């Protein structure tokens, strides 16, 4: 419960920081890695719902064409986080998803950023996607320059917390 409250506060502050500096921090550059980090930190159903709700609140506050990120990012997170049937440990993940654990968080962040930029495209832009590709890539680059290092730092922090026993590995969900 304490973890949930703390993660909620962290996400709220991050959203406020992003809103306060729209010129320096592009939409989602800080919030998406932090939300993904909270997902990985909590690794529970309530954490998943809290993070999804925060993504949804962010979309309501700053709407784009489609809320693809709150729709699909929790599903992608489940693929990364759900415990496998063979092993009860969260840290191993599913056997077919052979991605090293420290890379999972940056990859989920990358997927969330891509979903957000795809969701911000209007139907007209979707129709002319090849022509818009350079603009989309440019926007992605601007967000990822901040988002990926932040998610790497969070991933490292989570790993360290695991190593030092500062975080519960199992949760009741």
């Amino acid at each position: 419960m304490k973890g949930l409250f703390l993660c909620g506060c962290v996400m709220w502050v991050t959203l406020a920081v992003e809103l306060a500096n729209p010129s320096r921090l592009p939409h989602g550059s800080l919030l998406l890695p932090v939300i993904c980090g909270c997902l990985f930190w909590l690794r529970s159903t309530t954490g998943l719902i809290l993070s999804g709700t925060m993504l949804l609140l962010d979309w309501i506050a700053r709407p784009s064409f489609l809320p693809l990120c709150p729709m699909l990012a929790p599903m992608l997170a489940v693929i990364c986080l759900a415990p496998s049937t063979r092993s009860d440990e969260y840290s191993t993940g599913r056997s077919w998803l052979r991605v090293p654990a420290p890379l999972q968080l940056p990859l989920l962040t990358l997927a969330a950023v891509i979903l957000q930029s795809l969701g911000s495209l209007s139907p007209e832009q979707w129709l002319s996607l090849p022509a818009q590709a350079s603009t989309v890539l440019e926007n992605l680059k601007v967000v990822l320059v901040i988002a990926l290092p932040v998610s790497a730092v969070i991933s490292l922090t989570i790993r360290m917390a695991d190593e030092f026993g500062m975080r519960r590995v199992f949760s009741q969900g």
Partner: protein
Amino acid sequence: MRADQIRQRMWLGATGMFFLSLMVAVADRTGLLNPFRPMIHDALSPGRLIVVAMTAREKMSPQADVSSGQSLHDEQLKKNELLLRQLMIENARLRRDLKREKTAASLVQMIEPLSSLAQFRLIEASVVSTGGMPNSLRELIVDAGKSAGITRSELVIAGNGIMVDAGTDHSVNSGDRVLTGAVVVGRIDKAARWVSLVQPVNSAGFKAQVTLLRRTPDGLHFGVTGTLEGTGEEECSVTGIPHTEAVAVGDEVISADVNGVKGPQLYFGRVTRAEFLAGGQWDVRVQPAASLNDLESVGILRLGLERAIAEKDQKPASERRRTP
């Protein structure tokens, strides 16, 4: 078994989020989310204001590197002296201008005694909502609300004024008086504590009294007055123009008054279509000059009493009783 249960719950949660997001998207299209958007921004405002205040304090603090070296210190001192001298000159000039303006204002008050009661103030605000959204979803939220005294229906303007494309060919010389007006962006639709929702000029329900302004080789001519109405599309329409009046494509549209009070003339846009319909009415379309895409800061025009009257009004009742 436990892992299976947790995985099922997680998938259930994720699927629930998917459908919730879908429902929210549908609610947004139908306009059901409009009241919630300023509420969310308002809930985030305390944190945002703290961050803004901290950033401002960092900017204000002197740089450590500058104070370290003596040479840099001297250089700074010289710069300050130069700045002081410039400020003194500017101060003297401003005093002279103020004296002149006071004389002019007293003359205006003699001519128009009623206008002196009202005073317009401009409250600056930053745009909180994101840029580059599709027009149908675009909602402008600014970071000034009830705490700054903002109320509903106040006009929101952008600083960039009308560009007058007349030069020496039109007998314009240096020293001529140039009328510039700020562009009207919209009107305050809802004011929360720290943020306000703006109704853009072209959104359905927006109305304002406007005057048409025509440029001719002889100069500017003020034309007919009508009501500018937002259509919910890119263009606005002007209604209430008598069939006897003349309207032409290219006419400029400026404000006739600000919420019924004579005030600064603000720019709305340009007439792009003017057709005389069979029923004896004008169908006038106006392209708004304000663009919401790259808007970062706006001004909110507040109408209040003249300062002296307002101060008098704020005096405590006991003090007023003592005065004869």
